[in-house]
């Protein structure tokens, strides 16, 4: 268990105003002092926070109430795209291992209440995806939702990337979508909490939202990475600049998917990246290039 101190800090906050748009205002900003931490992921209820190292080695879970932190895994790749359920009681993650120089992954499930992990899929080369929509989590193995309810709801809806197309899966029923012209690629595919919209990034074109059936694709940002839903109408994403070698500026942006109006939640100098939000609790957590975690308490004005 790790006790943490929360430090109050100001700055890096900018008010957001937009007529006829969803407005985000920042009530408070705090540093979450738990040492170096990257790629935060808040549970939908805002009570648990997953974090890892910059290269995704190891995975930890932080109780946002008690500020106690537990190590889930110390393995390579454990922190890459884990998923956590609504109340933060269950986590799926992957350990990566090199076997004869080939990369293999397994799938582990961590019980946040009892503690401890169990292996749910052994090490292998198969294309396993961990999926999360509105607090529902599931393991997809070779296009199939795995087994029983322990590994995922068969009735929930998930959307994910298959590199050159998007797949929306309900149970084991798959639907492939190509919201953009042929040749496009899809990254960071995320279903909105109300299952009505799909968020994705086309690396060369920008950040997009489309309907659940792949129609009405709309660019909501020219350039961005690591997008996530904050409610059903706002997307958080990272906008960064680089010189081809080194990131020179990075900030957290919010965009109203209906109006396209952007808001800066941090300044470019903040080097902020990887925002994860819980509209239920009104919190957004992000990390910066030096591994400092910050917690924003948000008001949404519609």
């Amino acid at each position, binding site marked *: 268990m790790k006790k943490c101190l929360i430090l109050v800090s100001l700055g890096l906050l900018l008010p957001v105003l937009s007529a006829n748009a969803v407005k985000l205002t920042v009530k408070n900003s705090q540093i979450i002092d738990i040492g170096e931490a990257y790629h935060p992921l808040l549970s939908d209820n805002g009570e648990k926070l997953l974090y890892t190292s*910059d290269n995704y080695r190891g995975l930890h879970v932080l109780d946002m109430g008690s500020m106690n932190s537990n190590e889930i895994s110390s393995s390579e790749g454990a922190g890459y795209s884990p998923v956590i359920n609504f109340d933060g009681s269950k986590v799926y993650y992957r350990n990566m291992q090199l076997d*004869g120089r*080939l990369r293999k992954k397994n799938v582990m499930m961590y019980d946040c209440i009892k503690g401890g992990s169990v292996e749910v899929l052994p090490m292998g080369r198969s294309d396993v995806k961990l999926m999360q929509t509105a607090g529902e989590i599931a393991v997809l193995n070779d296009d199939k939702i795995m087994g029983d309810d322990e590994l995922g709801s068969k009735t929930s809806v998930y959307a994910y990337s298959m*590199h050159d197309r998007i797949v929306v899966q309900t149970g084991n029923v798959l639907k492939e979508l190509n919201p953009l012209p042929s040749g496009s*690629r899809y*990254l960071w595919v995320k279903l909105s909490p109300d299952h009505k919209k799909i968020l994705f990034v086309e690396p*060369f074109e920008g950040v997009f939202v489309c309907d659940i059936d792949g129609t009405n694709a709309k660019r909501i940002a020219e350039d961005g*990475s690591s997008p996530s839903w904050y409610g059903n109408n706002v997307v958080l994403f990272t906008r960064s600049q680089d010189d*081809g070698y*080194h990131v020179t500026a990075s900030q957290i942006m919010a965009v109203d998917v209906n109006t396209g109006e952007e808001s800066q939640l941090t300044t470019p100098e903040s080097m902020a990246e990887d925002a994860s939000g819980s509209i239920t609790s009104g919190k957004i957590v992000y990390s910066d290039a030096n591994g400092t975690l910050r917690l924003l308490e948000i008001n949404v004005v519609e």
Partner: protein
Amino acid sequence: MRKLYSLTLAFFAGMAINAMAVEPTDVHVYINPGHGGHDSDDRNVVIYPFEQGDPEGYWESNSNLDKGLQLRDLLEEAGIKVTMSRTTNTSEDDLNLTTIGTLANESGADIFFSIHSNATGTGNRVNYPIGLYRGYTGQPEVENSDYLAECLLPQLMSNEATVWTNEGRNYGDWTFYPSWGTQGLGVLRVTAIPAMLSEGSFHDYVPETYRLMNWDFCWLEAWHFKQAVLTYFDLPGETIGHICGIVHDSRTERTEDYLKYDRDVLEPMCGAEVTLKNSSGEVVDTYTTDELFNGFYLFKNVEPGDYKISVKAAEHYDAEISVNVAANAVSYGDVAMNRIRNTPPEVVEYSPVWNEGDESLLCNTPIVLKFNWDMDTESTEAAFSIEPAVEGTITWEDSNYQMTFVPNEPYATNTLYTVTLSTGACHGGGTPMEEAVSFSFRTDARRFLQLISTFPADGGKIHYDGPAIEIRTDSVMNCTNIRDLVSIKDAAGNTVAFNNRTMSYGKAGSSYGFMKISLSKDLNPGENYTMNLSRNISDLDGISLENDIVVNFTASDESKGNEYASMVDECEDAATLVLDESESANYESATISTSSTHLFGSRSLNAKYKFTGEEGGVLTYKFANPFKAGELLGYDMFGIYVNGDFCTHGLYALFEDGETVEEVKICDIDFHGWMYKQFVAPEMSGDTRYSFVGLRIKQNPGKIGMSCDIKFDNITYEKDGSGISKVEISGLKVYPNPASEYIITSADSLITGLTLIGQDGRVISQSGYNVLNVSEVPSGTYILVVEADKMHAVKKIIISH
């Protein structure tokens, strides 16, 4: 046998289970060609004929993509799956670094390459590869990232089609970019798989810039990446090989002022037609070098074996080389093309360059002619002349572009020579020169190296024990191989070896040359030896002796001394001699001590001193207790053992009768090692008694021996007696004693004859009057019989040369 076979099978089966074989189809590689879109993130190098910003010119994004696409093709041909971050070159392709890393993670790839090239951004251009992985050097943040870099680096360094100025290195990016802290390279920050960024070469090293404009040269780097992948996953190599190289002019250098190293100095050939032929002479493939000043050619997928590469290029003679191709390797074959001689030959440079009024030149100055073409040696040598005529040797260098004439004997001194190359000189194609070339130079006054002196001298002697020889010349010698040019031989012709560690010699800047060296063993007393000096001994300017020189000498045992003499002083006590400063002059330092170098007893007296200039130095040492005080009469014989240092200073004995001091020369210190020297007390008139009061050293003028170190051992005394009569002829004077050339006598009566008799009673020399020539008489002690007016007188006389 069956049991052994089973065990063997089991052993190899076990190995197979543990080996974890990887198939190419198991492997997935992610390739990120760095930058994109000719925008501000990209790198543009301005090279002729492209202006700045010209999209057709050099951009790093272009060559990165060329390498990436061809690497993709090579890997896919091998069955390896590839995903790329971009396949075109637009600004949109310039993805942000986090997106690139995430794409790699999402792709399921096993390894990640980010392909770049480097630049110094300064005028100090270099060219070598660098590999970077996330973390500190030796401490990768993602396991195996360092090993991936280690697989690639030797591959890149093996490329012989480029010119590397330094060894390549691999680094952790946190070590390489310390100012970025642990942020490191953006593209490696979020990769969860073994990843590296390669700076394959320096694109602002202009010859490399031109090479990177060539699609096939980029293929070569891609091929090396592929080899790294095969090594990393331990996959089998190719069954075919490849050939590449640079076609360049054999001599003509690039004229542009950018930095160029090694082969890059030479002009590459554009538009050269390169043909690959197999061992049967059949054409396998052809290639034309591009117009972008790199001269690069490439033949891919060649079956192993022997081949010929034939090249045709405008204004150049055809060229051909042989190449052997091995599987899974690139064979390199540069082709140097000789320009067609389409103009007459000319002398483009000659030496010596001399004009009237310039300083005269050494008499061994070589004549060098450089041409614009390789010359026909026969016609050119026939067209060469020098007046006054001098026999010499002509040599050719630089593929007959340079001719050198060296005289067999030094030129005559103070002579104006004129060198002429007539129009009969032709280049290799037979075309003669259009204009003759003529130039002159004057020689200086020094033709040969002069030998100043040797020890031993010709006809001289050397103490047999611990012998050391020395040769002195008028100019500092080149002592590099001098031990091959100087030898000591016994009477049978056997060489006496040198003790090489004892050699000392003069350094440049000295006013004379010397070489001193000890012999490795004692000589045999009484035997004759020779010192042989080759005429090839030369000074630092190459001026040599005129002839071989042979110096004859005899080994002696100087410790024998005078068996009839008695001891005066054993020279064991430094207090024996005291410097008389009032009678000394022009010295910087002078000490008397004892030395363990001795001939008798346990020590000797050691006089060390340094004169201030080249002449006028005098040191007077007085005995603390004068010898034979008040006892001595003329012609008493003394002896002293002297260990000299060849300083050539004069050593004198001082005798005093209470009022005046007489100086008697003992010897010049023209020897090394021990010598026994005898001297006779001066003749005094009447019954004057005197004392032997001291020694004096007087500097002989010259550059040699301002600092000296000599020793004295055992001073001996023999009274003038042993059957030798005192003077009976009135007023008889005999001088000098010791004598070197003549003995002169005078008396009150007419001297009618002189007879010199050896110690063995033989008559050595005679004269019918008062002077006797002894210049040919060997050094030693003799009896002189003086005849005058029917009277005889006998004197002991010393001959010393």
